[in-house]
């Protein structure tokens, strides 16, 4: 699971109101190189919950992202330093084994072989 996915997911147990962001319990983190696609990153940047991404990246051992969400001007500028960092954080760090933990109930959603299992139990729907 990459952090772009983490940024999209929340705990959706019935009755839970603050199911985002899910806390990451990392057991195995791997890095895979991915082709750099600025257009895609620009498109995604507008949709990202920045604070959640920064925290998630830190939980995975990557601390290079700025605390505050950069200006749109930074995204559009010719200097790609920031975009490269965003690229790495969103797409190249994978949670291979571990869990996503609901901040409200503590329910653990397991991540095995890179696949988050978001299916709810019968009594959670």
């Amino acid at each position: 699971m990459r952090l772009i996915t983490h940024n999209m997911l929340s705990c959706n147990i019935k009755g839970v109101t603050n199911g985002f962001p899910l806390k990451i319990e990392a057991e195995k983190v791997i890095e895979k190189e991915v082709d750099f696609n600025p257009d895609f990153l620009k498109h995604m940047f507008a949709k990202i919950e920045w604070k959640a991404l920064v925290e998630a990246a830190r939980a995975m051992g990557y601390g290079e992202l700025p605390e505050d969400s950069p200006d749109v001007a930074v995204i559009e500028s010719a200097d790609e330093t920031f975009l490269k960092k965003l690229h790495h954080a969103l797409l190249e760090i994978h949670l291979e084994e571990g869990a996503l933990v609901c901040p409200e109930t503590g329910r653990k959603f397991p991540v095995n072989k890179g696949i988050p299992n978001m299916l709810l139990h019968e009594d959670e729907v």
Partner: protein
Amino acid sequence: MWFLCVFYHRLLDFRKPEVEALAELFGEEDSPLQWRLPEHHHNDTPFHFVQLSSEEIAQNIAKRSILVKGMYELWGEGTCYEELKDSIERFPDSRKLPFLTSDSTFKISVETFGKALTFDEQRERIHSLTYIPFEGKVNLKKPDHNFFLMEMDESEESNGLPPIVQRRIFFGREVGFADRKLLPTFQLKSRTYLGPTAMDAEMAFLMANQAKAASGKLVYDPFVGTGSILVSAARFGAMTMGADIDIRVVRDGRGPDCNVWSNFKQYGLPSPVALLRMDNNVPPWRSGLKEIFDAIICDPPYGVRAGGRKSGGRKILRGTVDPYTVPEDKRTGHIPSTGAYSLVECVHDLLHLAARMLVMKGRLVFFFPVLRDESGSEVKFPEHPCFKLVAVSEQILSSRYSRVLLTMVKVEPYSEKIEEAARLMHLEFRENHLKWLEEGNIHSSVFKPTDSSQIHTEAKTFKDPKPKYRGKYV
């Protein structure tokens, strides 16, 4: 500019929508496209004329398409070779001469539809074109300019195709043609990881084209299975994301080298951005997340070959037992039971998901089953106030049922007000499809044995109102 667009004689209903979607993708501003038929031809002919604003767009469409055999600049047409000659001579020199220069190479090919010509007959036809002032050299392997002489005879009704009243001959310069080499490369029999409902390569590419998959875009399949649809989107450069309720399919596959990931690796395509196990009935997207996917493409489980599942056990959903509480000590590793997920519900959730998660002008492309014996009554497709239905393409699968590829474009932003209107539309749809709510009904309509007494009585009175030739071969 009018171009002659010649199609493969396959998947007839899918041909024009593909060109229309690709025209939009490559920046054609004239929308909807203008189409024109050659004289005396009917809609199922391989020959169509289409208006496009530039040769470059025509070329791009043809190159990317699966069903366009070729796009041509028409130099002349007629019912016989004399008429063709007049027509070609009337075509302005300014449009012809640049392609006939002495420093260029060329090739003339003869194509026929519905008949075969011997080599001598072909040569004779090519030689009859001497009135065109070709200055260049012939090069059969890699010519600069490709010319095509295409012939279609008048014909009786055949294979259910309506008759052609008059012979028609076309001569044109090729602008572009489909790269069908993709198909043998991606054919399912060479795919490592397959499931019972894997989408065949040709159809998957058509779906990706309907979705305008391209580099920089994010395409989502909520019923990803073995990833057969996303593979085609990835081939066209899109980033992909998929979800499935069956964890064995998305996570495990058939081992480390035979799973969804390996299907992408096999073709050197980038892996999906994400694969998730989740239930589309209760999706875990964070609140506030919207307009993130550029396209959603899927083949929902509608109960003919595979049935849908959703969270909550069958018995709980039917209300026969009290809600089940998972004991605390058994929570870890608990495998939740699932219940049937009817087509109507599934389509509702899909439209809801798409309304919220697609960007404006984003496309929702999905298959929807149609029972063919419901003769007379107009088929009602699902509707949503955020979406405009832009293409409906039927693929007939048996005398009982076909599947229809629906392409919808998001034209209205999602809001709570719209959600209420959507709910009403859905209730109406549900009303119309009550019998599909129950598990197994579609399956039994498709596979029920034919009532033999019915055949005898019906054979005389009942005539299939729908043409049969649109079967699996076309």
